[in-house]
């Protein structure tokens, strides 16, 4: 009973926030609604007893990816008017693409119904979720996991390689090793010298008096 109510509450929040991601005018609030959508879907997963996936969703997507998204969106100076300009011109194409995607999804779902009827198989509570997932991922599926991680690594290296071009000859880079290994004696010197009395600069009248 309580689970059903909770499910509908989370589902309504999820659908609402997903809609607001698309419809809200302020890009920041779009990102925030996307965060809300992620958190509510993590709650839904928690209700399915997959606590590991739910928490990892929050750690990875909400805690890292979306923060960077928010970061970028905050930096952008988005003018809503210019974004709206091409709306009516591109609408037919957008509708066409939308219909194609919709038809594809409907075909797939009708062909192979993915909805599981009946309760999901109850896993023993002795082994934690993370443990089970680890066993499967690192034994049965170890090659796909490594392949996926290599693809991600490739993307990362490629992104760094594209942006990190040291072509500018005048650019100044900091050599941390040099900075850290600086000693006080490199920067200034202590010299022992006797106190100087500047006799020459004394005014002539005084000189005479001294004589």
């Amino acid at each position: 009973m309580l689970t059903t109510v909770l499910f509908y509450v989370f589902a309504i929040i999820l659908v609402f926030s997903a809609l607001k991601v698309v419809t809200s005018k302020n890009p920041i609030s779009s990102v925030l609604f996307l965060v809300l959508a992620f958190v509510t879907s993590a709650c839904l997963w928690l209700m399915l007893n997959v606590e590991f996936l739910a928490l990892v969703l929050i750690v990875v997507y909400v805690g890292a990816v979306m923060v960077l998204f928010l970061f970028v969106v905050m930096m952008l100076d988005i003018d809503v008017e210019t974004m709206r300009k091409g709306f009516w011109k591109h609408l037919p194409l957008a509708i066409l693409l939308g219909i194609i995607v919709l038809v594809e999804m409907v075909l797939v779902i009708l062909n192979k119904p993915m909805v599981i009827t009946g309760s999901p198989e109850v896993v023993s509570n002795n082994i934690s979720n993370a443990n089970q997932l680890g066993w499967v991922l690192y034994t049965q599926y170890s090659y796909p996991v490594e392949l996926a991680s290599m693809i991600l690594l490739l993307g990362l290296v490629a992104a760094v390689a594209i942006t990190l071009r040291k072509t500018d000859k005048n650019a100044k880079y900091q050599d941390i090793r040099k900075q850290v290994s600086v000693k006080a004696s490199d920067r200034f010197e202590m010299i022992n010298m006797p106190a100087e009395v500047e006799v020459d600069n004394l005014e002539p009248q005084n000189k005479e008096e001294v004589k």
Partner: protein
Amino acid sequence: METLQHVLGNAWGYFIWKLLMAIAIVLPITIFVAYVTFAERKLLGYMHARLGANRVGPKGLLQPFADLFKFVFKELIMPTKASGGIFSFAPVLLLICAILVWAVVPFSPELVFTHVNAAVLYILAISSLGVYGIVLAGWSGNSKYSFLGGVRATAQMISYELAMGFAIVGVLMVSGTLDLNGIVNGQAQGMMGGSILSWNWIPLFPMFLVYLISGVAETNRAPFDVCEGESEIVAGFFVEYSGTKFALFMLAEYLNMVLISALASLMFLGGWLSPFPVSWGLIGSAGFIWLFIKVCILLFGFIWYRATFPRYRYDQIMRLGWKVFLPITLIWIFVVGAWIVSPLNIWH
């Protein structure tokens, strides 16, 4: 709990019991936090060779409450161009995340709000949400200084979260569980047999150091407090806040400090275990008092660093996180992995 369930019915009894438990955990922590702020003022005072707060109450002991009342009665100022909803929501979000984490932190084997299998993951997840409070606070005030502070805080927290996460991975490898109770109990066993020598901080010493320093960076405390660096950007992300909202930021910061200390003591310093061997009778027995002492020592460290170190330069902070801590933890993970499968394993 049974009595409550008997009187109020099953569901309501459970609900009321949990509510009482939550109050019984949050209230003492908040009062503790209030006195951490007082301790910080006093200790910093002594380290600067002055007296610190000593006027309100005997020896200044009522100072935190005076501070609180002052905050509460101050005017709430809202910048004209601030985005109102987010501006008010940001400190609340930060505080919610700081308090929610305590739901799974065990204070002793029995004294824990709720027992979660994946407690460590839960803590990582919720504390990674806290960064939103800071970013949004920085952005919504519509001030350049606070925005800069927010941007700095975000980059810093994400960078150090990684090193921190990997340091925790080392602990998880050694103890083989995500459950904080299990992690502490794991430190009571092993070759050294349940004294200070069998705690995780010795075999995982590099990770312990990385965790502690990243903890200071995560809570945006000195010497990593560039996001509020008052000499450059006034007070960083909370420039625009006043009164109660400002107090919420302070409360969240100190709550996070206490949390980092508590987690460090649970994961690396044996939690509620005594530093002495079990065979020594009373002082060898485990208890909440040991956890309390460890947390206090680590908190003293937090205050001490603030009085001792000058502020880091921002590029140095980034370099430390990405180029020093991350490689150290990654290498030590491999070392620990090899150690566990080798015959030299000391954890069984």
